[in-house]
């Protein structure tokens, strides 16, 4: 079925592929590592990755090679690589597949990244719920250690890299890189104020790089086939390579689809995911996980790359595409996401901690047909005072569902409130205006 060459999902799509070391080696696995260690200088590996245009696949889309380049060059002492496998953005389930079906692809990427940045220790911070994934990774690490791909003096090159799996314990915020580091240090997962950035003061205050699973899994392919090959895929120059898009919601065939960046949403939803599950037309979609603003059918021809999605008023984020059919209440959808953010706010910054609870209460009131027109002002006012006023990007993310649904489907809010006013039910006293 795929019209495009698969890169990350290629192995696992082969019938009978188990993800074991033998299977991975048969497909050319660990060749990139063999051809790199001691043969290409670490700085050149960074240059190759920079040239490929690879950008972070976790959500922010920061160029990977540039991120590596921020590490202090003359620093003597340990450096760390953290593989961000905390995949907890609602709508995203690609890393789980990459880790559970082809763990060695991720591990090879990790060792390559460690070599490039001069780190001898890597931690895979996997979300706590993915017990199976952590077991599969542990087993794969064991195999790789015996085969000499991980551990001391890898392949006789004198390079040492140790990889450990560290399970999180159920906190969305630990996918934020500095919160991840705090959590890895055995503390509450509260994001740190930046600067200083992890590149200079990361894990245990040492230079640290945090990369997403999918980002790392791309590395062996970039090394083997060259940065020019990678940079030609997708929509160059700024969004190169493929993306594993996670399609969920009201479609016939939800799931992970790896396609070159720059494909339109229409193509992804109607050709790959089989179109809408019933005869109801598409009403709304989220292009990049729960933190990305909602878009409408008018945006179906938007190209799925970093720039075009941003220009349409949303973000590519983690690549989680959630589709909603006609008949879905947008107030309800925004409320569900708001409840998620309310539950997951870490509580460090007042605007987010207090604001999320206020937003959820107001939204619940409107949805229960107990709202009043002033509530709409309150919502927008709160959103304005949360976004951009918090330590991490969570504040911007949590207002996205409300702001975007209010922008495109304001009438649904108004209708619910009109119903409330017509029924003239007893309502709580309005909250005092600030």
């Amino acid at each position, binding site marked *: *079925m795929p019209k495009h060459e698969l890169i990350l999902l290629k192995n*696992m799509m*082969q019938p009978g592929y188990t*993800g074991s070391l033998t299977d991975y080696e048969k497909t050319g696995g660990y060749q990139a590592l063999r051809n790199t260690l001691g043969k290409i200088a670490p700085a050149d590996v960074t240059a190759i990755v920079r040239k490929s245009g690879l950008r972070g696949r976790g959500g922010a889309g920061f160029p990977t090679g540039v991120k590596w380049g921020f590490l202090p060059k003359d620093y003597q002492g*340990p450096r760390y690589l953290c593989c961000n496998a905390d*995949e*907890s*953005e*609602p*709508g*995203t*389930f690609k890393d*789980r*597949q990459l880790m*559970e*079906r082809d763990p060695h692809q991720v591990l090879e990427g990790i060792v390559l990244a460690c070599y490039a940045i001069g780190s001898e*220790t890597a931690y895979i911070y996997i*979300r*706590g*719920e*993915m*017990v*199976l*994934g952590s077991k*599969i990774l542990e087993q794969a690490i064991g195999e790789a250690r015996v085969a000499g791909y991980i551990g001391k003096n890898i392949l006789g090159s004198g390079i040492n890299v140790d990889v450990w799996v*560290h*399970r*999180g*314990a*159920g*906190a*969305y915020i630990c996918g934020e890189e500095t919160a991840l580091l705090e*959590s*890895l*240090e*055995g*503390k*509450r*997962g509260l994001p740190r104020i930046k600067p200083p950035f992890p590149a200079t003061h990361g894990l*245990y205050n040492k230079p640290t790089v945090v990369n997403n699973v999918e980002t790392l899994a791309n590395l062996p392919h970039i090394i083997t086939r060259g940065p020019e090959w990678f940079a030609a895929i997708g929509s160059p120059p700024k969004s190169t390579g493929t993306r594993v898009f*996670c*399609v*969920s*919601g*009201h479609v016939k065939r*939800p*799931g*992970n689809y790896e396609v070159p960046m720059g494909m339109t949403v229409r193509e992804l939803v109607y050709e790959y995911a089989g179109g809408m599950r019933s005869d109801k037309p598409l009403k709304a979609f989220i292009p990049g996980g*729960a933190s990305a603003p909602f878009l409408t059918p008018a945006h179906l021809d938007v190209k799925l790359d970093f720039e075009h999605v941003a220009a349409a008023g949303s973000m590519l984020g983690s690549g*989680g595409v*959630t589709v909603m059919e006609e008949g*879905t209440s947008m107030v309800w*959808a925004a409320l*569900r*996401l708001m*409840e*998620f953010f309310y*539950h*997951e706010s*870490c509580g460090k910054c007042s605007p987010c901690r207090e604001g999320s609870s206020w937003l959820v209460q107001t939204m619940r009131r409107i949805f229960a047909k107990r709202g009043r027109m002033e509530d709409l002002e309150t919502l927008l006012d709160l959103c304005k005072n949360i976004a951009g006023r918090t330590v991490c990007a969570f504040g911007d993310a949590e207002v996205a569902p409300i702001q975007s649904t209010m922008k495109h489907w304001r009438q649904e809010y108004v209708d619910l409130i009109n119903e409330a006013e017509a029924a003239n039910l007893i309502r709580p006293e309005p909250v005092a205006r600030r």
Partner: protein
Amino acid sequence: MTFLEKYKDEISDILSRYPVMRSALIPLLYVAQRDQGYVTESAMQEIAHLLRLTPPQVYETITFYTMFNLKPVGKFHIQVCKSLMCALVGSDTVIEWIKTKLGIGPGELTTDGLFSLSVVECLAACGTGPMMQINEDYYEQLTESKLDRILTDLRSTGTSPLKSGPFMWPEPVKT
């Protein structure tokens, strides 16, 4: 036997992975939770002592993370995802089924102590919803008959073949 003595080897293996001891806190709490089904106060104190932390430092960390139970849960702890992506494909119905079948709501435990229910946020299985996690296993693409079978299996054998294996969806199409 104290907790530390019982898991001596495993604990020293965990400690060897980190240059700073406190990093071992969450992994050690998992060991404690596996032992009793929840993390007891005495285990927390032992861990605090071992890692040279104060008991409040352990407590402040453990209370941040939703996966640690501070009081006993059922032998089978059911967690149903109710985030938007699962809700679009019927997670609220799944919660209702469980309420009817087991007679418990979120945060409750069946009288025989077998099942407890939590309603949780996204578990990263959005393409295969509605879904739930029972103890360490994922169960996806739930239907009422599938749920019945899972509950029956758990009651009789303690495990169910319907749990998810290594994840891949959609599965490869044979050409």
